[in-house]
């Protein structure tokens, strides 16, 4: 099983008999680690948007 260290820096393949030991050390199964994605860029309102509704 692929497991990821608590810092996320190290990924190792672990024999089934060692999985519990690694879980106890803070490692997590790789398929449970959520990959952080960059937040989508905020929409930049242009002047036209700001003036919507203003006559």
């Amino acid at each position, binding site marked *: 099983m692929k497991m990821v*260290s*608590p*810092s996320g*820096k*190290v*990924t*190792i*393949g*672990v*024999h089934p*008999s*060692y999985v519990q*030991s*690694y879980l106890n*050390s*803070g*490692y997590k199964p790789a398929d449970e680690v959520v990959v952080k994605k960059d937040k989508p860029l905020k929409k930049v309102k242009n002047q036209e948007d700001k003036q919507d509704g203003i006559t």
Partner: protein
Amino acid sequence: MASHKGNDGSIVVAGSGTVAEVKSFSIEASAATAETTTMGSSAATHVPTITSWTASADVQWDPSDTDGQVALQPGIDSVNVKFQMNGTATGDTYYTGSALVTGHSRNSSFDGIIEASISLQGTGALTVGTV
């Protein structure tokens, strides 16, 4: 003739995990040979065949070193290990290869620091490079 200090050495696991509290490490590369001596020869001759390497490290035991010491336990798949010999500055030398962990012993005594020894068996070639 230049000499190089060992205190800037380090061990890196799986690309980015640095082993903490390393006191020393050693790398041994070797080559098996096959004898090619034939009748009529007066001295044995050999040719190199298969190369192999092993490594070991002595560390001060640190169970919180999850990226380094904890990662290097028997029972894991082969992992890339890099031995920085004399630092990580441009031009510094390292040895790297894929290895299996064949041993990880912890040694404790009433009057000393708890230490651990990690043994590695290389699988594939050991390569040398510079930063």
